[in-house]
């Protein structure tokens, strides 16, 4: 009924075309404060619920956002989840696809959410404002998740969602798991050596600018993001010749690997990149690992750290 791209746009956490990080960064100023206040209130309510069991846990939770899906699948009881987005049931796209299988799927539409008579609806920063407004108008309890730009923001979001679903202890455990796995990656990286010079290459020639979560994970893995020194602007698309002349140590290829072809992915198959692979390491990284806040971020850091170690070994042998 709808094209794949339309359905995806409604439930994905970041837009397909690289603008995500900077765009959210900018409008965080306006929207972030409001969301933070709301999440604070929720956290307080959750603290209160520890002492007063009268504050009932939601038991018909609907998520209209891919990353909210992952968090409720990790934090809430399965019985309490009424619906997740269709994107979360695709194992190439989502880390929790196995857990999402069998749950009713939605396309991010308000009417679908309301059909479950939800007592909690989770939406993302990029959910259609008309959808959110409609949900609020009919009185559905809505919690809106931002796209975190730092690991601190990730921890805050995990705790806030845990509070919203009435499982603060599971939230703390999830944050602890993330930190434990990040620490294990950090042990792999020898901080005394100069960091590897790296650049992210996404379909269509998009890269990831400074001030993003991905940027922070690269630092944790012992890499510096070369995009920081380029004037990539709000629309971080790199012409291939800029990429070639950057002379990076590592190119992180953030490829979703769709089965059907598109020009955007053909750019990642350009012969110049094959020629370049004789000089620099291409580290493939499944996009799903660092799309959403959660312990998978540590897996992304581990993939990068291991690619970095392989690069250093190859350099040493030369």
């Amino acid at each position, binding site marked *: 009924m709808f*094209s*794949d*791209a*339309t359905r*995806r*746009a409604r439930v994905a956490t970041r837009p*397909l*075309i690289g603008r995500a990080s900077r765009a959210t960064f900018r409008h965080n100023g306006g929207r972030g404060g409001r969301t933070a206040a709301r999440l604070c209130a929720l956290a307080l309510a959750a603290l209160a619920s520890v002492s007063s069991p009268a504050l009932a846990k939601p038991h018909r939770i609907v998520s209209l956002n891919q990353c909210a899906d992952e968090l409720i699948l990790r934090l809430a009881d399965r019985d309490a989840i009424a619906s997740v987005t269709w994107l979360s049931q695709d194992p190439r796209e989502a880390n929790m696809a196995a857990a999402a299988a069998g749950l009713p799927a939605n396309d991010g539409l308000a009417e679908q959410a309301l059909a479950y008579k939800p007592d909690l609806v989770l939406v993302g920063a990029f959910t259609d404002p008309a959808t959110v407004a409609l949900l609020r108008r009919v009185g559905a309890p809505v919690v809106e998740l931002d796209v975190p730009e730092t690991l601190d923001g990730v921890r805050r979001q995990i705790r806030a969602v845990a509070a919203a679903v009435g499982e603060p202890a599971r939230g703390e455990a999830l944050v602890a798991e993330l930190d434990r796995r990040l620490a294990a990656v950090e042990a792999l990286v020898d901080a005394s050596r100069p960091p590897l010079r790296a650049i992210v290459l996404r*379909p*269509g*020639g998009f890269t990831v600018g400074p001030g993003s979560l991905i940027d922070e994970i690269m630092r944790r893995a012992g890499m510096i993001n070369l995009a920081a020194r380029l004037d990539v*602007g709000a*629309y971080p*698309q790199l*012409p*291939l*010749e*800029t990429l*070639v*002349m950057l*002379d990076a140590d590592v190119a992180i290829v953030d490829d979703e690997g*769709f*089965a*059907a*072809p*598109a*020009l*955007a*992915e053909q*750019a990642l198959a*350009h*012969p*110049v990149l094959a*020629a*370049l692979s*004789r*000089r620099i390491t291409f580290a493939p990284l499944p996009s799903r690992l660092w799309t959403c806040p959660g312990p998978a971020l540590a897996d992304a850091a581990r993939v990068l750290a291991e690619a970095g170690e392989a690069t250093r070994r190859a350099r040493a042998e030369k």
Partner: protein
Amino acid sequence: MTASPRRAEAGDRPLLAALAGLTLVAFLASLAVGYVRLDLVAALDDAIHGRDSLAALALVELRLPRAALGAAVGFSLGLAGAATQGLLRNPLADPGVVGVSGGAAFGAVVAFYSGLAAALPLALPLGGVAGAAVAAIALYALSGRGAGTMTLILAGVTINSFAGALTALALNLSPNPYAATEIMFWLMGSLADRSLPHLYLAGPLTLVGWALMLSAAPALDALSLGEDTAQSLGFDLRRLRARLIAGSALAVGAAVAVSGAIGFVGLVVPHLLRPLVGHRPGRLLLMSGFGGAIALLVADVAARLIPVHPELKLGVITALIGAPFLFGLIDRMRREG
């Protein structure tokens, strides 16, 4: 009758040499301009001696295919514009206006997004050629021989809109979410990050298309005197039409398959050059080819120099220059008509 074209062709030589020279200059400018500073001499030296430097890679794998495709696509569009205008004896008949480019884009989109081109790379340009041929044949069937400008343009608008809608439909049906965002490339065209394989795929079909169209020069000159005169001079009009439709479908189809549809080049260039060749459509062919190559190379250099990111699509630049030109042309036709 046979002596004068030869004299005229001899007289064309300085003009042709000048256009060819300008094409070379524009080609070199396209090699020299980019997003990073490249020492072209050192890069060329590295490339020739097989040294694996980054500059040599950027020159050979990125700048060279971009410049060569710019020249080839521009040549195809200019030549096909002049040939179509000569065949239909109508100054508004350009592959972009009459829907041949749009048909080519649809054909290439089907070949590419269905996955056919991934299995068989030649399917990409062949898809473009097939789409262009269907559009050209439909145009001829809808407007017929000696049709008025109104009929021709109406038929062209219909084919163009229909092909554009089918292209959007095909992209929407693709299960790859990036596909829907790529309609801009197919409707407006770009040479950003093209590769040598694109050149190898489009090149041979393009050359055959050029040869077919250029070989029709004497017949086009005769046709400008009227169909009866051309026939009495021994030209088979049926074969002429087949040759020009096949030639423009091959050249335009292959061009659009690797660069997207780029409008106005085939319309504007022949008009600018027509007064210089004494309004002889046959003589105009080769010159329009060079003129188109210059126009597209310059537009592509401009695309990289204009500080807008991501870079402007080529069709945007050619339309910004070409549309006012088309308004002027329509105004003149209205006053004369």
